[in-house]
């Protein structure tokens, strides 16, 4: 019943509506109960006594009750719709809002297609149950209780007999519920797998076609599809035994009634009319039992889904920023103090990514970070805007530990371009001012110009109002990168971080971007994860990373003299020779 406790807070705000719906249901159930009574009256008093008056009066009463019941049903329906939709919307918002607190590490664990299934399918399942509950579940016990009351008042002796039926039904329900719930959860998990394959095929369609892997993908999908089908079938089959079994229990009750009741009529202890009424009430119980049989499976499914939604809502972000902080970034001096970073692998493995990093970047400096693939470049710069927290050591900005700075202060002053230039659908201008929506048009254009994007933007039909397609589909790789740089520049940050953001841009353009940046970043700090020598040459400080440690640090002039590693890279770029570099052993080979 854990899940019920979790759902309740979300339903709290609808308590007024729920109460009214409940009342409406209550009254409705009462009126529904009185119908057979009227029927009994008509038969026993009206017909038996040849009294048309009673027949007419009772009929009119029944009509009145029925109309009232209908109005109440309307009220109930409208409320049920509003409550359940509102509840679902609240749940979605809560989940989405919590996702907004996720850090990079959180996102690595819960992926897009998983989140989507929870936000849509799972929430829908819970919503259906809430709606059903408001519309019927109140009715069911009320009808049940009401019918029981009627039964008992008609003949206590007969009613006693029937009270054996109820435990039998409860046992049925109990057995099925323990089996059903984990199965429903499994169904959703399989659904996630299906969605995952789907998502990969939609987002990675070019890859699938390029490698002519459609057949392979179809088989892959077939496997997860079949898996889902089998699990679904299992659970639905289980549920489909519920309803018939409950009906059987009731029918057995009718049989018992006829036998024992029949004997009582023959002995003169009951009237025929009473038996008819009794039977009617029994059949009235069938209706709510049937409903129960339909609702219960949904209810179990909803509990399983609610758990999954709550997982998203309750996940704590791995990086928590202070709500408010008096600490400000004023100059942009970045210091790494003995920083180490481990990556959490599977099964509590800790893979060291950075070890013992110490350096300072002064305001106005351009720091280039060089290194082999996987040497830790991206991880290093990710620590500055606090996308991750170091495992050991501290990252300081202007002498303040970044952990003490508020998120808004960090974002206002540090702009990053990530390795994958991701754009959003909207206009070019909207994308550029994404980081600082209040930027003026002039500022947007200035940023675009510095990023060497202005020209190609103006070539598009609507210029800055041109639409950016999903994921920036309608721009080339290099254009996307430049737009991402413009976006970062528009923030007007104290610290700029460019993570390999000009890989798709040609050399000439890149040089122009650099010149523009030098002007723009005058007095400000910038970090560039660099590939090209030309970038590095201009840097005030070059940091060479190897296996997570700083292997060399200095200016170009210093390093070309003192660092073998640096020399190797430099020379390879210019093609004067290829140095065969090996960590422990350096050889020099020159081409003829």
């Amino acid at each position: 019943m854990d899940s019920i406790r979790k759902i309740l807070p979300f339903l709290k705000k609808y308590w007024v509506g729920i109460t009214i719906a409940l009342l409406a249901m209550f009254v409705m159930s009462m009126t529904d109960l009185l119908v057979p009574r009227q029927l009994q009256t008509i038969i026993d008093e009206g017909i038996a006594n040849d009294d048309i008056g009673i027949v007419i009066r009772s009929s009119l009463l029944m009509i009145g009750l029925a109309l009232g019941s209908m109005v109440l049903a309307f009220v109930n329906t409208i409320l049920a719709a509003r409550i359940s939709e509102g509840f679902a919307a609240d749940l979605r918002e809560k989940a989405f809002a919590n996702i907004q607190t996720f850090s990079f590490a959180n996102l690595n664990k819960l992926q897009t297609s998983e989140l989507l299934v929870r936000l849509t399918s799972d929430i829908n399942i819970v919503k259906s149950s809430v709606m059903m509950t408001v519309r019927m579940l109140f009715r069911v016990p009320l009808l049940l209780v009401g019918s029981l009351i009627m039964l008992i008042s008609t003949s206590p002796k007969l009613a006693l007999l029937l009270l054996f039926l109820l435990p039998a039904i409860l046992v049925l329900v109990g057995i099925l519920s323990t089996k059903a719930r984990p199965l429903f959860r499994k169904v959703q998990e399989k659904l996630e797998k299906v969605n995952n394959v789907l998502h990969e095929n939609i987002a990675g369609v070019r890859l699938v076609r390029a490698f002519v892997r459609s057949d392979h993908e179809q088989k892959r999908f077939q496997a997860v599809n079949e898996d889902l089908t089998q699990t679904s079938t299992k659970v639905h089959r289980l549920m489909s035994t519920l309803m018939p079994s409950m009906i059987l229990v009731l029918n057995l009750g009718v049989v018992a009634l006829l036998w024992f009741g029949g004997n009582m009529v023959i002995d003169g202890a009951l009237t025929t009319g009473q038996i008819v009424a009794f039977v009617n009430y029994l059949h009235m119980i069938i209706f709510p039992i049937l409903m129960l049989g339909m609702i219960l499976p949904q209810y179990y499914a909803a509990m399983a889904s609610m758990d999954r939604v709550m997982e998203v809502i309750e996940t704590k972000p791995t990086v928590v920023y202070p709500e408010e902080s008096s600490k400000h970034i004023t100059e942009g001096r970045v210091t790494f103090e003995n920083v180490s970073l481990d990556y959490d692998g599977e099964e509590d493995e800790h893979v060291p990514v950075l070890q013992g990093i110490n350096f300072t970047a002064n305001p106005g400096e351009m720091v280039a970070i060089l290194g082999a693939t996987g040497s830790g470049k991206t991880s290093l710069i990710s620590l500055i805007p606090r996308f991750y927290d170091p495992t050991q050591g501290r990252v300081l900005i202007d002498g303040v530990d970044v952990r003490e700075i508020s998120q808004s202060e960090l974002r206002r002053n540090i702009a990053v371009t990530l390795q994958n230039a991701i754009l959003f659908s909207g206009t070019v201008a909207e994308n550029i001012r994404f980081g600082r929506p209040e930027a003026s048009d002039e500022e947007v254009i200035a940023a675009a110009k510095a990023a060497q994007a202005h020209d190609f933007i103006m070539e598009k039909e609507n210029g800055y109002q041109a639409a950016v397609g999903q994921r920036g589909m309608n721009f080339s790789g290099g254009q996307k990168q430049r737009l991402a740089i413009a976006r970062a520049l528009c923030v007007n940050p104290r610290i700029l971080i460019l993570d390999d953001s000009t890989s798709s841009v040609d050399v000439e353009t890149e040089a122009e971007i650099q010149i523009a940046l030098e002007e723009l970043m005058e007095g400000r700090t910038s970090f560039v994860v660099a590939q090209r020598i030309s970038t590095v040459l201009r840097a005030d400080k070059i940091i060479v990373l190897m296996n997570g440690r700083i292997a060399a640090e200095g200016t170009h002039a210093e390093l070309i003299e003192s660092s073998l590693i640096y020399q190797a890279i430099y020379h390879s770029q210019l093609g004067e020779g290829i140095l065969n570099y090996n960590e422990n052993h350096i050889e020099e080979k020159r081409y003829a």
Partner: protein
Amino acid sequence: MRRGLSVDQRASSAQKPVKGLKRLLSYLKPYRLELIVVFILIIVSSILNILGPYMLGLTIDNGLVKQDWDELLRMVLILLGNYLLMWLLDIIYRRIMTSTAQKSMRNMRQSLFDHMQKLSIGYYDKQTAGDLMSRLTNDMDAITRLLSLNIMFFISSISTLIGILVMMFLLNWILTLVALIIIPLTLLATTFFLKRSRPAYQELQKSLGQLNSLMEEDLSGQKVIIAHGKQGGSLEEFKTYNESVQDTGIKANVLAGLMPPITGILSILNVIVVVGVGAYMLIQGVGGVTVGLIASFSEYTRRFGHPINQIANLFNSVMAALAGAERIFEIIDAEPDVVDRPDAIPLDTLKGEVRFEHVHFGYDEELPVLKDINFVAKPGKTMALVGPTGAGKTTIINLLTRFYDIDSGKILIDGHRIKDVKQDDLRRKLGIVLQDTFLFADTVMENIRYGRLDATDDEVIEAAKLANADDFIIRLPEGYETELSERGSNLSQGQRQLLAIARAILADPAILILDEATSSVDTRTEVEIQKALLTLMEGRTSFVIAHRLSTIRDADQILVINEGELIERGTHDELLEKKGFYYNLYVSQFKGLPVEV
């Protein structure tokens, strides 16, 4: 920001509901036999169900009223048998129906997926991933509900209905006619609501699609949102679309929910009228009406109401399902743009000569991206495509792989027009490493093996070694068995590129296409790869799109593309001598470098 609206949400087809329903039900066709069995079982079960009140009436009249013990016992035993049999049949047909419905859904999902494998890239570029996903989840849900629950109710309702009618007719045709008045009334009510609920459900499915688009885009780009601290804005936009789903949901559900009370009251009125008329007839001594008959009839009329109710409610489910189905059929009805011609020839061994003749192309009819491109790449030669971004280099690749078809001109491989060749064959012969490396959530080994599924582990490792990926792979927590997260996000960009290259190496293609693959890799590793690629490119026609002049310097021919036109061609030295566009590009690499060269 205007979001999730990359595609003009087409106006839903003016398909008549009946046609849509027929199409939906056609997915049940392969299970005709099972459905017949279910049908029969339901009918038998319903008959048994109806006999209940009849026997009840008999019991009362013959057993109670006549005070006949033996008769009572006999009737009671018959009733018992009746109910037990019903229970058994119910369970059986439900089990059959469940698995039939689930299998039909499975088939629908599979055929949808299979069809999507045939659609052209152009289709995917025009849709949002989120909306496509929504069709396969939300819209499928609506259909699932219809096929799994409601069909059974429909069949059982109809048969119950017929059965009851028959019994009632046999008992007293006058009262039966009275009871039938409810049917036209219910039909009226149903039609009234249907007209309104269908568009409401269509609106709902549409808003769901839009919300899904937004969520998919945002969640995919969540890291950028974090980087710019735009979580707030993201949430604000979400709220708008969320509200829209809420509103359309309320509307649709209210409309759907108003129907049951109405059909419910019609049912009660029906009972009242029937009992009233029956009583009147009894009092007047007309038509052989007895107390027991009225009791039975009241019971039957009551029973009559339930299936009518259910059928009426069914229509709402149908509307919801149809709204979903329409969106799914839109995908199934979409035709691929790039198709194999009926007489497409298979492509056997390739020498690898590629020719572009007067090729014109534009993604958008009005905006040509490539203008009159002409070149010849001889087998085994390396062609470098150089030029500013957006000039058209990637487009040339898109055309060569036939992700898009050219507007005019010819592209020939070994003298065959690629339009005449089977797409699959063409792509199998091309090895492609794209700008956007896409890896799957699977092990490293499997990701590389994707290049050639029947490759052995050794061959995979060999390819990885050639791509210089082996070094970093063996240092991963589980080496080649390390699981990559979605899109390989637990590796650095450079590492992913290396895996992509290993994959291409494994594919061992006749024509190699490298789209700026190597420029995300640091210079040291790039050197290693270049060495490997040189070996690999030996004897293969290669197209390299890179910006690093050090990469393309060794190409056999350099094609300089600017603004969609091929403006210069030649070897590195030839082009330098020309002192044209390429010369400028080359010289700029050394801008600001100390004069050491």
